[in-house]
């Protein structure tokens, strides 16, 4: 994922997280190939699930909370930092931010 598209606050939260740190909340937008049509909601949700599943498998953990926003190809997630780090390595992710106000 393009480093410029990660919210610096999220990056900082992940950098500072230790093994015993609690879960972190993030919001993530998944992109589409340039010029492609937007996915219908059902397909969008499946695609989002696939993205999360990949990170779950790689990190061998599951999010504690997960809310899909299929109409805007996005989701919010509360998960341990390890899972989120794997998630952000996924090439399909367009942008990600800490779910926290400034």
């Amino acid at each position, binding site marked *: 994922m393009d480093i410029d598209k990660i*919210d610096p606050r999220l990056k900082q939260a992940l950098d500072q997280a230790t093994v015993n740190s609690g879960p972190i*909340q993030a919001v993530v937008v998944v992109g589409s190939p340039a010029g492609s049509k*937007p996915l219908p909601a059902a397909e969008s949700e499946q695609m989002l699930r696939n993205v999360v599943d990949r990170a779950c498998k790689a990190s061998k953990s599951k999010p504690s909370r997960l809310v899909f926003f299929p109409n805007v190809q996005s989701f919010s997630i509360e998960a341990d930092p390890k899972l989120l780090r794997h998630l952000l390595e996924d090439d399909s992710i367009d*942008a990600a931010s800490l*779910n926290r106000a*400034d």
Partner: protein
Amino acid sequence: MPIEDELEASGHTRVVVVLKPTKRHKVDGRITVALTETISMQQEVAQSIASCFRPFKNSRMSQMARELASSSEPTIRSRIAADGPMRRGRPDYVRDEHAEAVPENAGVRYFPYLGMMMGTVDRAGLAELRNKKDEVAELFSPPEMSLIRPFEDEEAALAGPPEGVSWALKRLGIPKLWDAGLTGDGVLIGHLDTGIDSTHPALADAIDASSVFDELGQQLNVTTAMVDTGFHGTHTAGLLVGQPFGNVTFGVAPGARLAAGTVIEGGDIPARMIAGLNWCVGQGVMIISLSLGVRRFDPLVAALVKQLRDRDILPIVAIGNEGAETSRTPGNLPESLSAGATDEADQIWFNSSSQQFAETPRRIVPTLIAPGAGIWSSAPGGGLKKLSGTSMAAPHIAGLAALLKQFRPEATGAQIQKAIIASCKRPSGISTLRGNKGVPDAMVAKSKL
């Protein structure tokens, strides 16, 4: 400023706490917050920890309150009026009865629908809060409010609004579209704001659907009528779809209806805005009016707005109220149709944001300008309020887009945007850098569609 730094500097700090416990239940296969039960449980918690907070004479809010009494500077007055905890005693202020669980003089505000409290604490109060493991789920420094807050002109407001069609509607040529039978009938507009006082007579039957979201964007199961958590949303909703009220006509598209999401209450939590956008799309809106933004470029918001445009949804966004050489995201994104504000003298409103970006070709925001200063519209409690801001300009343009959508239901968002921009003419006293394309003309826009 981080909590510890602020404590060190001033002896107190503002914090937000997320309350425990939260009861959840399964509705249609989804686990969601059982709102009534949760509020009922958390009210007692809110009461029990309210003593950790207290007002401070030298806090930002207290200082502003003192300045209010002696200053005629509108910025200070509006900041006070806009910020909940210091608005005690204002007759037009609507509070949820659940929030009354916490005393008004406790230096804290309780957000029952979010299960959160925000207030000022000293070091002892903060330590006490941090020890309340059974009552406090999370504690953090509150955000700078991301709502594009309008300015109030209270002295002028005492005289009341002039009767008839507002100057803003006349300036845009909206009545001519009404004469052509266009009221926005059949058009659904997305409205993400502080909520709406749905009991206001000007907004009777204006809300087609409403929603509230928790901090992770999970939609809350709210069965009661929509309320405004401040006053901003009721005002912007009135400009979009308000019926004439008190012999004053201010709503651009009174035949249109709203899909209204409450996404701003106690802070700009990204998941709430995303959830609101997601929900609006699911409701079938083609136009979304956004009088909010963050004071920096945010790639996440940029990606979201791109998602909207990919779905042919037109986001019409206030550019911000911080003056020249400033702008907010998403108003400053190329995918947004952004609005700056003008006044009744057809001049740029002094605080209207504008910015030129070092891109090729050069790009200036806002896209256009529209009436936004000295605007009367509906207020919580059943009255009218006069406000100034780009928050008022954006719904005027979103309402115009709704009228055009009724005229050409098959038109895409991009076509409507193009027609509006093609109708713009910049007043001679406003530079390109401040007013960009200028002010739209409703009839010309219709002819361009």
